[in-house]
């Protein structure tokens, strides 16, 4: 037996020595030096993402990530600053007078990363494979509106619609599903949705060069790229699920920058900012964090109750204490900086006395000796559903519970994991739901369009608003606004829709969220792009 033959003390000492050598040998000072000399030759930036980059297929969704799809695949037109539609793979376009025909003149100098040509033929092929799976992309109204696709000549592509649909160009800028893969990427069945891609071949500035699932992905600059070439040679995306680990890795310089929304806690952001060692940035408001009332349930069916809760919510306290003043107070469903979303309304200011009065009027009265208000012997209890993986939602939910209790409202907190959360939300099993708008370029039109359909990829707002007597009318107006050709009428309709939603107080907007960026001082070009989901990898440079 092995124990008999050797002297145990000695073997332990031996092990210990070996172990020390192992640990010492592992220490990575030498490795860093190697890396440093490597870095001189090729410029590399490293950042992290909470999940894997997915299978890099622009025609599908989960587990794909927007940012990685946008690195490799490009749209016909690009969503620019302030919503301006910029020529991209199409250098110009003509729209017929009736607004039903779009003719795109494609760039002639574009190649896919495998060297194959980008032309009208491949554009049509990509459109057609997406249209073959129309049902899956129902949430993009444009997909429903497309009647036919046509190759006019080698570099001219024509799109014919059923109706004149004004957000056509805007929806063509979306990261998915209308972006283009090369011929060699198509699976044998030609159905990219069902069978995936053979390999990720796009026209974009980046090409995937190395990939280890759930660990990292390395993208190299596409040397044949037609547009402004990225300044760095390589981008490394590390998968780091935990926000605190991300911060530590950043401090250790294992990450060059942190970018995104909710990728680190507000506390960490504040800590990094106050340290003075790093550059920090906050983007303009992108989307709205909001609560949604379920208008089908007994208490929240009553507009007065919804109004009361709007007045009872102390947004400023939430912003000061949970967001450290980093987010802007929201009074309307969409940030007023977007197209068509600026409306003149009196915001529901924090006013506890008014809230109490409204609750009294609604019949929910205080009862002597009982903590909560009652109506016909029933306690005022509201179920607040939120996503348990989101730390911010949790803190706000707890704050709301405490604050509303003072007014005699019992808030029952229900937290669920992402998947279950959305399922419950779609089923409408809640009184109050924590949700947010979709950010540009989806806001406001795609978000509102989703309210009108009971679609799987839509939003829970459809079910939540069913209890409104005005629901049908609102739906009709939303459908109408998407097909208006007259700018003035469109503006009026949007104002009308948003005013109704505000007056009905079905939402309780809390704050406008922003993207955050934290980077080391040797990094430059970390600018926010118009589409919230894109990471500015093309402009980033390392000194």
């Amino acid at each position, binding site marked *: *037996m092995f124990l008999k033959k050797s002297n145990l003390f000695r073997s332990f000492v031996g092990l*210990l020595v070996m172990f020390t050598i192992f640990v010492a040998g*592992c220490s990575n000072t030498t*490795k860093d030096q190697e890396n440093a000399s490597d870095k001189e030759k090729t410029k590399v930036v490293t950042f992290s993402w909470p999940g894997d980059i997915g299978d890099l297929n622009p025609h599908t969704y989960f587990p794909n990530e927007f940012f990685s799809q946008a690195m490799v695949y490009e749209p016909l037109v690009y969503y620019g600053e302030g919503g301006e539609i910029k020529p991209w793979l199409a250098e110009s376009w003509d729209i017929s007078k009736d607004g039903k025909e779009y003719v795109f003149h494609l760039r002639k100098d574009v190649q896919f990363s495998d060297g194959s040509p980008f032309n009208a033929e491949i554009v049509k092929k990509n459109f057609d494979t997406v249209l073959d799976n129309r049902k899956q992309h129902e949430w993009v109204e444009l997909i429903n509106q497309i009647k036919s696709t046509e190759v006019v000549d080698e570099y001219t592509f024509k799109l014919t619609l059923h109706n004149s649909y004004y957000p056509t160009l805007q929806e063509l800028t979306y990261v998915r599903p209308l972006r283009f893969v090369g011929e060699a990427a198509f699976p044998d069945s030609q159905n990219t949705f069902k069978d995936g891609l053979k390999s990720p071949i796009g026209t974009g500035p980046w090409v995937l060069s190395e990939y280890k699932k*759930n*660990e990292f992905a390395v993208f190299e600059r596409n040397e044949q790229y037609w547009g402004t070439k990225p300044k760095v040679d390589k981008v490394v995306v590390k998968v780091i699920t*935990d926000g605190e*680990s991300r911060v*530590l890795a950043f401090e250790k310089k294992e990450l060059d920058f942190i970018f995104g929304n909710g990728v680190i806690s507000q506390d960490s952001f504040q800590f990094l900012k106050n340290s003075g060692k790093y550059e920090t940035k906050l983007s303009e408001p992108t989307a709205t964090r909001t609560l949604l009332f379920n208008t089908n349930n007994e208490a929240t069916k009553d507009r007065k109750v919804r109004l009361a809760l709007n007045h009872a919510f102390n947004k400023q306290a939430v912003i000061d204490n949970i967001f450290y003043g980093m987010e802007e107070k929201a009074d309307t469903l969409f940030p007023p900086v977007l197209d068509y979303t600026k409306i003149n309304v009196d915001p529901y200011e924090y006013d506890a006395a008014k809230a109490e009065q409204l609750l009294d009027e609604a019949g929910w009265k205080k009862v002597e000796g009982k903590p909560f208000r009652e109506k016909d012997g029933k306690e005022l209890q509201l179920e607040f559903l939120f996503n348990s993986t989101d730390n911010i939602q949790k803190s706000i939910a707890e704050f709301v519970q405490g604050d509303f209790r003072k007014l005699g409202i019992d808030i029952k907190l229900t937290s669920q994991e992402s*998947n279950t959360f959305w399922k419950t939300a779609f089923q409408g099993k809640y009184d109050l739901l924590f949700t947010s708008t979709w950010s540009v370029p989806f806001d406001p039109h795609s978000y509102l369009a989703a309210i009108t359909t009971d679609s799987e990829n839509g939003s829970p707002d459809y079910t939540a608003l069913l209890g409104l007597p005005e629901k049908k009318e609102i739906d009709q107006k939303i459908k109408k606004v998407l097909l208006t050709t007259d700018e003035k009428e469109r503006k009026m309709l949007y104002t009308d829709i948003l005013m109704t939603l505000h007056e009905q107080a079905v939402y309780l907007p809390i704050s406008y969220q922003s993207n955050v960026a934290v980077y080391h001082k040797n990094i430059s070009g970390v600018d926010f792009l118009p589409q919230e989901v894109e990471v500015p990898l093309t402009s980033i440079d390392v000194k």
Partner: protein
Amino acid sequence: MGWFIVKRLTSLIPILLGISLITFILLHLIPGDPAVAYLRISHIPPTDEAVAALRVELGLNKPLYIQYLDWLGKVLQLDLGMSYVSKNAVWDEILLHLFPTIQLTCASLIFIVVISLPIGMISAIYKGKFVDQFSRIVAFVSVSMPSFWFGFLLIYLLSVKLDLFPVLGRGTLAHLVLPSLTLAFGYIGTYMRLLRASMLENLNEPFVMYAKARGLRQRLIVSRHVLKKSLLPVITGLGMSLGNMLGGAVIVETIFAWPGMGQLFVTSILNQDYPMIQGCVLFMSVIFVVCNLLVDIMYSFLDPRIRWEGEK
């Protein structure tokens, strides 16, 4: 000896069958329809027709026992089905995540053995002295300190401040040190005290006195006789811990961005990826049973009495 192993191996068959049955049934007790989950994950609206068609395709319309037999037949050929999310074979995904887990487990085991056994032994010999007192404190800290906190402390001190190790990720051996030390730390206290207690007990046995009477040196007595006997409970424990660690350490894996079994299991639960959950549960149970078997076999090496009993 051979007979003993054969006997233990045959007893595995009913256990494994039992595990497969329980795994299969458990998943059918979870509320929710796998067909709906599949459609939802694939971004296909779960209309009644789509669900019905998929139920036929996945064989969910067959009687439960046939479903079980079908599944078992495939499992025996190492076909655990296809993940709803990645559309890859479950078995391939498990293999992909298993290697990092094995790496982490082995390194942790080294840490556990190298740190806890010598300290445990010394504190038994010098009972009540400084070493013993010190090891007691270490043991308390080890078992009560949550691993996420300890992990962050290690990163902060050894990596960010002293720049000795990388913060996270996989790659060189250096990447392995912090996560495995974090994982090992929780076990170190337990095994230190376990060995100490068991040695103290054996130091009072008559065979020790007899050995002393034979004039053997203390060092020899401890290393050849006492230690070997005292290692028995430690090995049982380590076997169990090995099974645990191979099942994945979710918290440690999350902190250090280590793509192991724990992460795979948790994400598949969050995604309601039924075949993946089933595959993971089955796989982990089998690992656990096999580890136990190995412990049993090793036991019979260390303590012949067990072997003889089996052969009688």
